[in-house]
């Protein structure tokens, strides 16, 4: 085929392009107009269907009155020109080089129309391609010589789609699942395209692969199987990334930030496995669109709802029950999903085993509406509410409390999201979100003043966070070699960290107003992903800008990011990255468990934002699609991180938190190894992390560095699943973590008051639980100088799938947690945690309290 510029020189017959021609309509396909021109004018039009999308619908301006004008309009943007030669019209490419055109659309699941995140779309010959974004959208430029592209995802059967596409517009692809038994982990390496070390993307199917505490599927705990992700305590969902604190993770539920992610002291996360579609964890090489936290981003997407037919499931276990219902309101147009989970311990055991102890329950509700406006526009509405309620009565037989306590904490999130395919190369999503965390505490106390006089205290404390935000993210696929992302957002924060009211007359006490902070946070970002040297080198520079605006202070932060990846032969690559992250809000907490009383406060004129400078170097190799290995080295410097140097009482308006906060630095570094087998009968993960985490505060430990409370030298996980047949699979996981640091006094010496014969136990002076006065003081040479016992446990599980080819399906899951009955430390106390010894002289010991010993679980799921 000759190029246009050569033909023009010898044409001499341009008059046939000026021949009058009146199109019969303003709309039609390219083929329609070509055929009509031939029919109406008798001029032959020659073309190759291999590079021309004949079925593409086009629109005329209405002013075209010649064959040339009509052809120019209908061929606009295709890279094709009309040329006259020897009385014929030839439709030819504009230059001699290969021409590209853009295909775009959504990749969805066949049965439900659920968008598939992270599906690979690539030319099998050149291996060049892309992957779908968080909404299942892709945009790819392909050469006109390309015979077709492959759509694949590890959980779905791949499809080869011949090109050019049969129709104009979006090329939406539907993939069929491989079957639930084959659901395996995905770690950013669906194919060779765009896999990233420091990034984990996990479909929910993976969560149910391995044994779970009490049978509760938990996405955050599943992430802990991977290197660099650990928990502070045994079986806690409190996620710690590379030596960072729990508050340094940005949790997004359908794009809505969350501040508290734990149920029951963090033993379970608030993310209901039934409702979650997948979770992505970023540990480094942070995309520029993310900001606001120092250590990681945990992006959780809930299911969109089945657009084809109604489905549901009910799961029951001896501790909880959950139900899910999803289906179309209008088939292929709108879908709805409702998921509910509730603990049952109060209902089943409240009158028996737990009768004397109080009451506790939790529940979650997830709702999502997914409305297709047209093939370019879609709206999602999502809602979540999670609630914990706890009541501890003063008359319990175990601990003599003077008080009845009620704890009631909840999260509510809501989001409206509008996604729009602006054109085949530009995809945009705009989100409006609302997030609220509310912690209510009530207390009824009798505080004895004298033998005949007591104070009857009714107290109510509230800690609340409210965020309202709007955000836009736009992706522009300039070419296969350049992909630009940009966007921005605005968040209105309303923090009321502490508010306390009591029936007690303040008397002389100043009635202090609870502090409330109103803030605006503005973000903007831009990122450019470039593929250079024939896709050997990928460079992704980006810039995230964030600013926190208050009446009393203003902080702004420009956060550069860069990722550079060099592709090597045999599916290997080396990647380096740098990211600066800034955190404007701080969590003030001293315990290591996830408490709703953890206090979120903003940066103020006295307390600066926290910063992290994160560097990483990684190498990855993949053997066949089954095996993957990567190793990662990281170094993270933390600046201006805050901590409290005393115990905060959050429900006291007079407790001025700013006076108790000190700022310092942190240094986290280490290396991670991952070996993973993702397909076949036997699948599994082996991960190992060697890490250090240090903190340095001028006013702690004599200004010297000390190990951070979440410092763990070794973390190791081994998880295996074996699929026996379509009905049965077996799984096992073993987790190991070095002991947590603990400050153990090196000496004890006489208490200052005790030495001077000063007794003091008026007014519940030293402890609410006892009037026992300790007669010694601890001498602490160094903070965190001692290590608790290592935490490890082996868990076994099995799943039985029944009726997988029938309408009604049944899944029975069972297993044993901590099969060798290991006593892992949950709380360790020097001396007794609560004083029971009333002898003047008593032995001092370490007391370790463990949470779970060997614990079986069993659950049954019914699906339709």
């Amino acid at each position, binding site marked *: 085929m000759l190029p246009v510029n050569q033909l023009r020189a010898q044409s001499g017959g341009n008059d046939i392009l000026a021949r009058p021609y009146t199109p019969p309509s303003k709309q039609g396909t390219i083929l329609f107009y070509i055929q009509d021109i031939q029919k109406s004018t008798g001029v032959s039009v020659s073309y190759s269907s291999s590079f021309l999308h004949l079925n593409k619908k086009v629109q005329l301006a209405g002013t075209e009155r010649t064959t040339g004008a009509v052809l120019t309009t209908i061929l606009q943007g295709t890279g094709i020109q009309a040329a006259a030669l020897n009385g014929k019209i030839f439709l030819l490419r504009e230059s001699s080089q290969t021409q590209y055109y853009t295909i775009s659309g959504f990749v969805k699941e066949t049965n439900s129309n659920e968008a598939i995140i992270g599906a690979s779309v690539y030319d099998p010959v050149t291996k060049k391609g892309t992957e779908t974004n968080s909404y299942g959208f892709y945009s790819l430029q392909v050469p006109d010589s390309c015979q077709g592209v492959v759509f694949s995802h590890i959980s779905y059967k791949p499809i080869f789609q011949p090109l050019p596409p049969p129709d104009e517009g979006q090329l939406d692809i539907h993939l069929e699942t491989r079957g639930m038994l084959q659901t395996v982990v995905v770690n950013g390496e669906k194919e060779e395209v765009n896999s990233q070390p420091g990034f984990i993307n996990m479909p929910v199917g993976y969560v149910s692969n391995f044994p779970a505490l009490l049978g509760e599927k938990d996405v955050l705990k599943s992430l802990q199987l991977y290197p660099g992700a650990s928990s502070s305590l045994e079986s806690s969902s409190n996620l710690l990334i590379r030596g960072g604190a729990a508050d340094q993770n940005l949790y997004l539920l359908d794009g809505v930030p969350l501040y508290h992610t734990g149920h029951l002291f963090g033993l379970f996360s608030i993310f209901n496995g039934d409702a979650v579609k997948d979770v992505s964890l970023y540990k480094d090489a942070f995309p520029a669109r993310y900001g606001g936290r120092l250590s990681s981003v945990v992006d959780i997407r809930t299911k969109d709802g089945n657009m084809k037919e109604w489905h549901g499931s009910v799961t029951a276990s001896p501790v909880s029950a959950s139900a899910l219902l999803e289906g179309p309101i209008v088939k292929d147009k709108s879908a709805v999903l409702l998921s509910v989970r509730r603990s049952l311990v109060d209902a089943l055991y409240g009158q028996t085993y737990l009768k004397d102890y109080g009451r506790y329950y939790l529940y979650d509700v997830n709702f999502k509406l997914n409305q297709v406006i047209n093939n370019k526009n879609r709206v999602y509405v999502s809602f979540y509410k999670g609630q914990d309620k706890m009541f501890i009565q003063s008359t319990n037989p175990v601990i003599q409390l003077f008080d009845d306590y009620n704890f009631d904490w909840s999260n509510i999130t809501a989001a409206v999201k509008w996604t729009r395919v602006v054109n085949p190369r530009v995809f945009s999503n705009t989100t409006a979100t609302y997030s609220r965390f509310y912690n209510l505490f009530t207390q009824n106390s009798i505080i004895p003043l004298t033998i005949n006089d007591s104070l009857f205290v009714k107290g109510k404390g509230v800690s609340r966070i409210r965020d309202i935000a709007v955000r836009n993210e736009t992706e522009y696929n300039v070419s296969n070699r350049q992909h630009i992302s940009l966007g921005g957002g605005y968040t209105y924060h309303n923090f009321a960290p502490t508010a306390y009211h009591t029936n007690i007359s303040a*008397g002389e006490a100043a009635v202090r107003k609870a502090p409330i902070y109103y803030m605006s946070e503005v973000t903007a970002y831009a990122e450019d992903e470039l593929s250079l040297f024939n896709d050997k080198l990928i460079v992704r520079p980006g810039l995230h800008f964030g600013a926190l605006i208050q009446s009393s202070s203003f902080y702004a932060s420009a956060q550069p990011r860069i990722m550079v990846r060099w592709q090597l032969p045999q599916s290997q690559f080396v990647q380096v990255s740098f990211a600066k992250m800034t955190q404007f809000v701080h969590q003030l907490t001293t315990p290591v468990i996830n408490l709703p009383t953890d206090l979120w406060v903003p940066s103020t004129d006295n307390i600066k934002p926290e910063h992290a400078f994160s560097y990483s170097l990684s190498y990855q190799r993949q053997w066949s699609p089954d095996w993957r290995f990567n190793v990662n080295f990281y170094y993270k410097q933390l600046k201006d991180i805050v901590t409290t140097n005393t115990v905060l009482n959050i429900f006291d308006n007079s407790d001025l938190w700013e006076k108790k906060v000190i700022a310092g630095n942190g240094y986290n570094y280490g290396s991670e190894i991952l070996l993973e087998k993702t397909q076949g009968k036997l699948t599994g993960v082996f991960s190992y992390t060697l890490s250090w985490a240090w903190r340095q505060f001028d006013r702690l430990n004599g200004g010297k560095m000390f190990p951070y409370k979440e410092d763990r030298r070794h973390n190791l996980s081994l998880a295996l699943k074996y699929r026996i047949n379509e009905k049965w699979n077996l799984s096992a996981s073993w987790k190991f973590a070095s002991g947590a640091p603990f400050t153990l006094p090196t000496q004890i010496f006489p208490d200052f008051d005790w030495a001077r014969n000063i007794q003091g136990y008026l007014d519940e002076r030293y402890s609410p639980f006892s009037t026992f006065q300790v007669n010694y003081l601890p001498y602490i040479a160094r903070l965190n100088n001692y290590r608790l016992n290592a935490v490890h446990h082996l868990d076994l599980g099995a799943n039985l799938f029944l009726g997988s080819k029938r309408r009604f399906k049944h899944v029975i899951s069972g297993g044993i947690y901590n099969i060798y009955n290991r006593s892992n430390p949950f709380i360790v106390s020097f001396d007794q945690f609560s004083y029971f010894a009333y002898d003047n002289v008593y032995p001092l010991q370490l007391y370790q*309290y463990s949470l779970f010993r060997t614990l079986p679980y069993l659950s049954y799921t019914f699906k339709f």
Partner: protein
Amino acid sequence: MKYLFFILPMAAWWLLTGCERQLPLPDNHAAPRAVVYSELIAGEVPQVLVGKSKPVAPGVNNGFILVNDAKVTLMDKGGQVLEELPYVPDTTRPMSLYQGKTKLLGGKTYTVRVEVPGLRPITVQPPPTIPLPFKLDLLDTVRTLLNGRPVLRFHFTVYPLPGVRQYLVMEALKQSVTLDTSFTWQGVRYRKSENEALYNQVKDKPGIDMKKDSIFLNDFLRIPCYTQDENADNNQIGGLNENYNSILFTQTGKPLTTYFYINATALSSSPAEAIAPVGRVQVYVKSVSKEYYDFLLTYEKVKRNPGLNSLIQAIQLRSNTQGGLGIVGGVYQQLYSLYYDTL
């Protein structure tokens, strides 16, 4: 309420009581250290309490022994020995008392050296300077209520010293008193409580001179105190509605006018209950040396919560005793004695 922080971990712990396990303490080959506590008070003679620490190791308990063989030396700033403090036998004290005769002076720097056989000697670094006298006005006192509790309010004004940063400490103790009979027999005066047998033998004999007297004991009850003053450094420790051992201020340049509250429950003792002993209430307003002030600030934190469990970050006490443990502070104090009980 102020211990809310504990409640949730306690609830977790409560569920775990069946899973308690005692772990052996790790070996610790560190040697015990000498412990010294002393308030060097202007106008008074030096008193130094000496004791011995215990390394935290397998078998340790919270019993402490007395150290009666220490060599305690009082020196001036230049290291010139002023006197060696002799041991004062006193079985009522948990630590051994060494007391001198030198009258301590405000504005002067003293140091103490303590040598306990077999242990590293203690030197005080930096040595404390006893603060200069300061002017204090007690404007009034009122019985009132603070957050539902009966309190006694003191309205103080502390005047600054030019160019000097003052570290102020306000606290209250109730000192126990006992009623005793003293008698003179053959020219020697005896206490009945200490010489019961002799008393019974001679009480009816002619010429015996007997008197009933109130004797203040070396036994104190700490009275919780409060402040509502946001300038108080207790703000660094906890909330202003909490009770404290002492109320702490750093004063620079300006007069400090503040309300100081003490819990009124213990002002007078009730025979029906043993909350407070019969005695007198001692209210102290002290100006102290900086190192002592820093110690007291961290001591308040430790008493509030020592952080000896894995849920809480431990608190390190500040100290100026090199080679050992404890604190030696300089104090200029003003004292108000209140008598609510019939003595």
